[in-house]
């Protein structure tokens, strides 16, 4: 069931920018449209890029926001989850 929902309608989480939009919704109670716009502006991308894993993989790497990895594409110098979350909080002004 999680896979079906993720493929049918999800923002792809750490594969794209779903977790960033989620943080604004859950922390600030921000509605989806505003949350997407805020994240897109903070990242310097279009709203339409937020669920695109190719665009977001590069952006997340550059801004050190954490990203998924695979056996063929490892990122040993990427930040740890704690470091990535500190960067996300600063980027989105979550305090």
């Amino acid at each position, binding site marked *: *069931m*999680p*896979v*079906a*929902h*993720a*493929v*049918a*309608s*999800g*923002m*792809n*989480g*750490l*594969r794209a920018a*779903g*977790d960033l*939009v*989620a*943080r604004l*919704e*859950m*922390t*600030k*109670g*921000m*509605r*989806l449209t505003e*949350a997407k716009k805020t994240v897109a502006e903070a990242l310097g991308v279009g*709203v*339409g890029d*937020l*669920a695109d894993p190719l665009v977001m993989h590069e952006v997340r790497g550059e801004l050190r*926001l*954490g990203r*998924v*990895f695979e056996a063929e594409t490892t990122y040993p110098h990427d930040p*740890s*989850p*704690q470091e*990535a*979350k500190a960067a*996300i909080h600063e980027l989105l002004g*979550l*305090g």
Partner: protein
Amino acid sequence: MEPRILTRQGDGSAVSLTRSQLRSELEEGTRAAAARARVPELRADELDHLLDVFASRARFSAVDIGDEVVLSFDGSGTPQQGSRVDALVQYEQCLGADTCELYHIDYSYKAVKTVVGAEQQAMKEAQERVTIPVHYGAQPDLGRYSRPDGPCGNWSELLPAMRIDEARAAQEEAVGLAVEDMVHVAGELWEAGADGINFDTAGAGGDADLLATLLAVERLRAAYPAMGIMVGMAAELVLGTHGKLEYRGTRLAGLKPEGQCRVVQEAGATIFGPAVNVNTSHTVAWNVARALSFMKPCMDVARIPVHANVGMGVGGVPMNAFSPVDAVSRCSRACVDILKVDGL
């Protein structure tokens, strides 16, 4: 003769209907909700769109590119995935979850209170290994406070015996105890690093269950202004097991998703999750039309994000632990396309 299209019953079993029959299912589903909840039926264009979704022979259905929404998964993880925290990592790295949730198998704040230290340790580990937001979730579960599981009178026994005043007093006593437990556990998990707290199936025990949740949310919001607080409902209608309870002047018994959303956001939650239960005797198309009709009015009053519940047996998703993807994906898409929800 009209060709038949494979679709699903509310229990997930396959059934073949014609396009005309599917339209009837959708029309009857929205009509059932309108009659029951006194809400508007879905518009003709909305029914047309749903018909296209359900009459498609495609195995899978999805929202348009650009229309994706946030997926907040509760109860993330199953035993095959290893430890609870291993499961959260997999939800993040492999399953595309936007948020995940650490939970104890005895999904109740009262039960978790006794092992909260262990839960804090698990949350600490989760925060060290997961980048996406991690909720901590459990149920208000008011029934646990009644005898023999708890110290209060058992209103399920008192009500049939017509001992109404005693049943009400027992529930009021349970509310006080439940609020203390929820505030304690949620506060401890927040202190351990949780990104948010999920009150799942609020109102499952009726209006007193919902009142306990709202009072806990109110206190947590005052104590922790930055806390993410998600309140997911148990059903489309709050049962009046007490009948007289109010929250800030609103009678809780009988509240439907619109009213539920109003009180939840007033209490200080940041995400509201409406739930509409599935009738397994009807088709998924019927159930989806009914669920959307129930939930749609709350989209107009919501100031906070609305994440429709679309797990097993709610929101049109079949009441089956292994729901077919053709049905799940259609429910997922229908909620986004028709309701314009903020998440699922």
